[in-house]
């Protein structure tokens, strides 16, 4: 029998601003909406290096890491974070990003292992549904692999 315990606990999310970006309206809105949707949200802050983001994600034992970046340097940050998550054996963390990101970069980022990228205009509910489904999926596959 599978243990449903894993998927019942609150989803923990770490949100961070990436690079040198300080546009915070989006991340404030997301933080509150995630919280209202029953998630535990931690805000890492601004001007946090990829190393600091990943180490906080691991020490806070989050299920989801979300980085918002609108300064144009998302490629550098996101790919570095992906690399560090892999190196630190934190592949289980769902890694999503958002911001003013050109469509061609979105494809490239997804190819490089960023789980999902949300562009301006995405309804918040869509992001929440995505997170819930993905975290659930990961919990189930973890249980399966443990069996």
């Amino acid at each position: 029998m599978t243990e449903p315990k894993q998927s019942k606990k609150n989803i923990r999310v770490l949100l961070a601003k990436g690079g040198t970006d300080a546009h915070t309206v989006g991340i404030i809105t997301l933080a509150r909406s995630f919280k209202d949707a029953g998630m535990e949200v931690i805000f890492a802050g601004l001007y946090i290096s990829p190393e600091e983001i990943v180490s906080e994600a691991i020490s806070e034992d989050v299920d989801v890491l979300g980085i918002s970046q609108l300064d144009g340097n998302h490629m550098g940050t996101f790919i570095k974070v992906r690399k560090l998550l892999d190196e630190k054996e934190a592949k289980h963390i769902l890694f999503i990003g958002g911001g003013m990101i050109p469509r061609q970069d979105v494809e490239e980022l997804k190819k490089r292992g960023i789980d999902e990228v949300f562009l301006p205009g995405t309804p918040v509910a869509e992001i929440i549904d995505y997170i819930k489904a993905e975290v659930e999926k990961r919990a189930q596959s973890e249980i399966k692999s443990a069996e």
Partner: protein
Amino acid sequence: MADNINYKEIKKREEEWEQGPVREFLSQVPERYDQFFSHSGIPIKRIYTPVDVSGVDYLRDLNFPGQYPFTRGVYPTMYRARPWTFRPETGRPSPEETNAQFKNILATGATGLSLGANWTWMQSDVDPDDASFAELYGGQLGHSGYCACSLKDWEIMFDGISLDRVSTSLNDIHMVQRELAFYIAIAKKQGVSPDKLTGNCENDPLQLYYAIMVDTFPPEHNLRLFVDTAEFCKKHMPQWNFTSLSAYNRAEAGLTQIQELAFGFADAITYIEACLERGLMIDDIAPRFPFYFGVHNDLLENVAKLRAARRIWARLMRERFGAKNPESWRMKIHVQTEGRTTSARMPELNVIRAALQGLSAVLGGVQSLHITTFDEPLGTPTDYAQYLSVRTHQIIAYESGVTNTIDPLAGSYYVESLTNQIEEETLKLLREIEGMGGALGAIRRGFYLRQIERNVLREQAERIKGTRIVVEEDAFISDQKSQLPYQEQIPDPQGWDKLVKRLKEVRATRNQSRVNEALDNLKKAAQGKQNLIAFLIEAVEAYCTAAEINRALKEVWGNYNHNAVPHLTLMLR
């Protein structure tokens, strides 16, 4: 408002009207909401009558355009003489692309330039040719804002643009003094002396601690840079506005119109007091102290805000600071239609939004306007979007008819009443901020940040509740596909390599001992009390790079830690 109005009778009739026909109508068809609010959350009545403006004294509170307290406009003829300055924002990653954009925009009919600096480059203390820059930023500069590392890049950026014939707004918010030094150096190369330059610089560092949080120095050093700029411009650049108080950036972080005004004024007062402490006189600074506001969706509230802002400024300058020169009482206003009101779904709708907002700015009597391009939520402005933006200005200026008379909404019971209310609420919040030690106290306590967060969350909650609507996002969502030929503006793929190559050439050919000396002089001056602008000019003329200058000052002054101020983190835990 007038002596022969029987307020008592009007009040009585209004009551009867509410109890009679209104009530009867409501019983059949209820109104859309129980209560109506302005964008800023001011409760809005069903109608306004002479009773609501009975306290207005025309000559004291409104007066004629160009006359104190300038509610109706700062000049006697306003747009009947000439329309506002059409100032679109420019700046693309490479100096070559920015230069082409300048020429394109001026040819379309823009009458001023506005230089948006590349966000990453502006804050960086390493140059793009440094290996650690590529490591930090992934070997690219992003898509927006100009990047001009040394005077060599500036020469390319302004090639063929005569600085004595264009008015420019410098927006390197991180350290606009450095940008001003580059601009002066280019002018000198063109044979234009600083006293011939017109425009402004966004010398407004207090915004960096809560509204647009770039990597920066601690506040006391930024305040010193502010005053240095004021002092330098007073002496050498009489036609130049040494600041442009960017209430817009504060509003964009998520503020109401009232918070935008109150925070803007509180910060302005802090700047002015710092200048006075240095020995400058109020009439030295106030005439060259323009404001840069945003206009949001609420058309009539925008008009009321701009009218109230002029009146508050005039009274502050004259009554509180004792300014004698009428120029000190005149608040000159640049407005940008707020980027955060644009939507990425159906971007063509943003053309309509911006036109209405632009109209509100003109009805509010601004001196300069930036109509945000429809592609604002998608990326850096494309040429086509900027073309539409300039044409929107021209349609308002030359087709709409609103420029034929001055301050056409004056005397509207609603607009006058809202103007009064915004003034009162702003002064109330301003007093609250002054009570906590002014801008610096509000920053230290995290007051500004918390107010921003609260308002962002309030707006979001209203959208969920359905009392605030963004068309095609919260309501009226259709399957219609955008048909605008929008193509992302992709930066020149060779731009980065060219920039790096040029930097290496500059390093190889510049006089290194002159560079070292200039940077040493700058650092020594930063430790002392001398005005830094001349040292910055010396440094850029020695072909020091922007990052070298930043690094030199950081070595002396250190960095400010944004995460030390309690804000979002606290609220969530």
